[in-house]
């Protein structure tokens, strides 16, 4: 049999065949799009990490755990990067001073700004045009524009201020750099992110696989009957396999092509809409390596064909007909697999370090997924039997018996959504633990200038601000409880080292922090920031407008939208699988439902049957999914910096809303019930 004949048979295989082809195409297209977008998002996060690496060049010189940037310059340059804010928006102010004729140049610049010159990012230049008072923080001639290579995202506010070596060489944290690298100081967090993403991508893959399996099962019975007819006409088993492979492979290849096109559109939408750490992505960062694209585009159709082959293998057919091998009733032993996975995760602490057991965390998660997926049918069977015992109404009874009779099919249909609830709870637990507190601890109107320790004489104008509270060494106990109560949102006694009170007067006065009360206006805050930047370039200035930013924890705060996106992804895919499962279930029972309808059973009752079949087991197994999400997030968070907390009510509301949305989405398949149970399904001819 030629492949051409197989193609013709695939295309001319009747209504059910066409429906399956269309659904397979759509399912594969969605799966490929989602997978490529997930891979692009991972690539985008790492590209962003690398883009921010040059700002940490000074750290890289002093911190042994960071990879040294490549030395491209023999002369070197003095470099200092400071994080600052304008109205709560983060910005970077970098000072550079060439130490010779051939200094290293940060990415995005053709040359180093000379003393008195400033290079601005386009977004910062636009902001200065709107708020001219901001220009005082970057004194100098605006002569250069920072290119995209210097920015972590298109809207980033960055200034590179040219200075002479004399001006900054004595400023604390300034370092001599001979090149700019791509390893940010928070790289440990990116490595941790890699582990979390591996876990998440593994969790994301499962619903995609489930959905693809579901769409290939639509109207499988009709297909198998058709293949038996081919056997009767003289086709060999190999030719049957060829027909089946061509049929699904054709749809999968078309779907993969459509998915690739949708990905090209989707990554633009992603770049325009999704933000991480307050900034959108560069389109160029959302690029999937070619080998990953090939792997997805070839792997998904191959997987679809393999799924069809496996399902055919389960249906031995000869020229006289087919006989489906009865599947044994599901058993509870996969619970052991699940328990081992959970227990194993408790032995590894992915946030604590990089030992072998810590790196095994994804493996434990995979074990849990395998255990849960294998246990799911057993859970559905138990749920179905319990429902059947308790149900009083016919629709509930029919649904319960169906669930109990074919728990494999039931769990296949709902597993995507169930796994989604697991992912949502898991991510909420992990991100909630790692994210920093949302409050800065400063009262409104108070600006804190952290100098890192400078002479009081260097801070003249700031120290004269009325009611300023100064924390320093050499002053003795300068912070009185009354003052503290006025400006700082912490309680007495203030944990000042008692050694500070024992100065003999010979210690030079060093100011560590100043708390400056203002009228709360942005203009007043900006004046203090400008003065601080001029007096102490490395000062860290904060107000209650700023997001808390310390030790890379803000990175995890920025993960929230990504986590939400991942959850949305899983829910959409899960809902697609649910809809495909419902369509498949309807196609399989077209005749009994049509005859029931002919006998006077109302459409609303049939709809209730179909909905109950997916809703009841889905809710029950989703509750278990939520429980697993809580346990695994707790286990994954151990060894981290934060304390694991129960996810707040919004997470549970999200899960409930997600389940509802999935059911509503899947309900879009219900009109098919009306069309598939019409009069023509009653007839025999």
């Amino acid at each position, binding site marked *: 049999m030629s492949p051409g004949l197989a193609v013709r048979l695939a295309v001319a295989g009747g209504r059910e065949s066409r429906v399956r082809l269309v659904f397979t195409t759509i399912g594969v297209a969605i799966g490929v799009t989602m997978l490529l977008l997930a891979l692009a998002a991972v690539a985008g996060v790492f590209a962003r990490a690398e883009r921010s690496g040059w700002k940490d060049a000074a750290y890289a010189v002093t911190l042994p755990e960071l990879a040294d940037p490549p030395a491209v310059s023999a002369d070197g340059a003095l470099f200092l990067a400071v994080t600052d804010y304008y109205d709560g928006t983060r910005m970077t102010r970098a000072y550079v001073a060439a130490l010779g004729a051939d200094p290293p140049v940060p990415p995005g610049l053709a040359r180093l700004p000379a003393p008195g010159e400033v290079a601005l990012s386009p977004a910062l230049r636009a902001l200065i045009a709107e708020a001219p008072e901001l220009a005082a923080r970057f004194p100098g001639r605006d002569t250069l524009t920072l290119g995209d290579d210097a920015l972590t995202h298109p809207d980033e506010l960055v200034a590179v201020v040219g200075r002479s070596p004399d001006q900054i060489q004595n400023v604390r944290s300034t370092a001599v750099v001979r090149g700019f690298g791509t390893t940010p100081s928070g790289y440990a967090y990116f490595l941790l992110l890699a582990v979390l993403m591996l876990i998440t991508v593994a969790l994301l893959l499962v619903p995609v696989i489930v959905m693809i399996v579901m769409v290939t099962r639509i109207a499988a019975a009709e297909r198998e009957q058709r293949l038996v007819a081919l056997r009767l006409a003289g086709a060999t088993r190999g030719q049957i396999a060829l027909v089946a492979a061509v049929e699904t492979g054709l749809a999968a290849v078309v779907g993969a092509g459509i998915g690739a096109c949708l990905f090209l559109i989707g990554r633009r939408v992603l770049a325009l809409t999704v933000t991480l750490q307050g900034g959108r992505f560069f389109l160029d960062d959302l690029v999937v390596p070619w080998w990953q694209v090939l792997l997805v585009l070839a792997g998904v159709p191959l997987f679809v064909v393999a799924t069809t082959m496996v399902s055919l293998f389960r249906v031995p057919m000869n020229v006289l007909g087919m006989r489906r091998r009865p599947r044994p009733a599901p058993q509870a032993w996969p619970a052991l697999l699940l328990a081992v996975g959970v227990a194993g995760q408790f032995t590894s602490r992915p946030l604590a370090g990089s030992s072998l057991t810590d790196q095994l965390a994804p493996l434990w998660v995979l074990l849990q997924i395998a255990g849960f997926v294998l246990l799911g049918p057993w859970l559905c069977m138990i749920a179905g039997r319990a429902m059947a015992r308790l149900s009083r109404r016919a629709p509930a009874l029919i649904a319960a*018996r169906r669930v109990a009779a074919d728990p494999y099919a039931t769990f296949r249909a709902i597993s995507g959504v169930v796994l989604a609830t697991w992912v949502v709870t898991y991510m909420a637990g992990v991100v909630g633990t790692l994210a920093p507190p949302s409050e800065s601890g400063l009262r409104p109107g108070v600006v804190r200038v952290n100098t890192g320790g400078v002479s009081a004489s260097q801070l003249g104008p700031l120290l004269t601000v009325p009611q300023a509270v100064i924390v320093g060494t050499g002053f003795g106990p300068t912070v009185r409880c009354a003052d503290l109560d006025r400006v700082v949102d912490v309680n007495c006694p203030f944990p000042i080292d008692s050694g500070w009170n024992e100065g003999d007067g010979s210690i030079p006065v060093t100011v560590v922090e100043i708390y400056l009360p203002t009228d709360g206006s942005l203009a007043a805050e900006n004046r203090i920031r400008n003065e601080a930047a001029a007096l102490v370039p490395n000062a860290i200035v904060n107000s209650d407008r700023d997001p808390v930013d310390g030790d890379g924890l803000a990175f995890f705060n920025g993960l929230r939208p990504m986590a939400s996106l991942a959850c949305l992804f899983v829910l959409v895919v899960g809902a697609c699988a649910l809809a495909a499962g419902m369509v498949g279930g309807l196609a399989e029972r077209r005749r009994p439902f049509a005859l029931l309808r*002919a*006998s*006077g059973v109302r459409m609303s009752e049939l709809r209730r049957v179909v909905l109950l079949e997916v809703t009841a087991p889905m809710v029950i197994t989703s509750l278990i999914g939520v429980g697993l999400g809580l346990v695994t997030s707790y286990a994954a968070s151990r060894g981290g910096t934060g304390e694991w907390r129960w996810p707040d009510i919004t997470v549970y509301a999200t899960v409930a809303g997600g389940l509802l949305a999935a059911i509503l989405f899947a309900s879009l398949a219900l009109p098919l019930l009306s069309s598939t149970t019409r009069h023509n399904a009653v007839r025999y001819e």
Partner: protein
Amino acid sequence: MAALLKGRDLHRSFGRVQALRGACLELAAGEIVAVIGPSGSGKSTLLHCLAGILAPDLGEVWFDGRRLDELPDRERAVLRRSEFGFVFQFGQLIPELPAIENIALPLLLAGRRRRDALAEAGTWLTRLGLDGLDTRMPGELAGGEGQRVALARALITGPRIVFADEPTGALDSIAADQVMELLVDTARELGAGVLLVTHEPRVAAYADRTVLVRDGLDVLARAGAS
């Protein structure tokens, strides 16, 4: 005898195919009528129109003094579940429900308590010689047993008319005879009319009257053999 069900000048087309072209048929209360004819002659379409499953393109269907074909679909569905019973050739049993629950289904759909519905279904199992098969799934029943379960389901609500569309089409002659004897005897016991569609003269012989349908028209009516 006054007609309980009456179809007059019925026309029904499917695309360009005219399945009925002015067919007429009457069924009195308690009467058993067989509709026979070659494959594609329109006999099933006639049954579907008379049962309110299909609305005819032209013509009238009257049941107990009510114009059935003019009723909205929802009311026709109510009528089908309360006044009619149906036996089809195959595939009418819910594969996941055991025999007793399949029989009890119409009562459960009507809102009867589960315990009562199952108890009544149990009496029908005995009545139709299906004792001991109550927990069997449809896939585990022999063809004749399955059709008897379907028969019990059609009769459990006490319908006034049973519509049987090739009820023995998938059975051997012994099983077919068993099913037909039970159908006819029980219908007579309940006083229900039966409209039987078949292409087998041997099955049609169980009817009081036979109607031959050819090319969408009833062309001959004759008294039954039994």
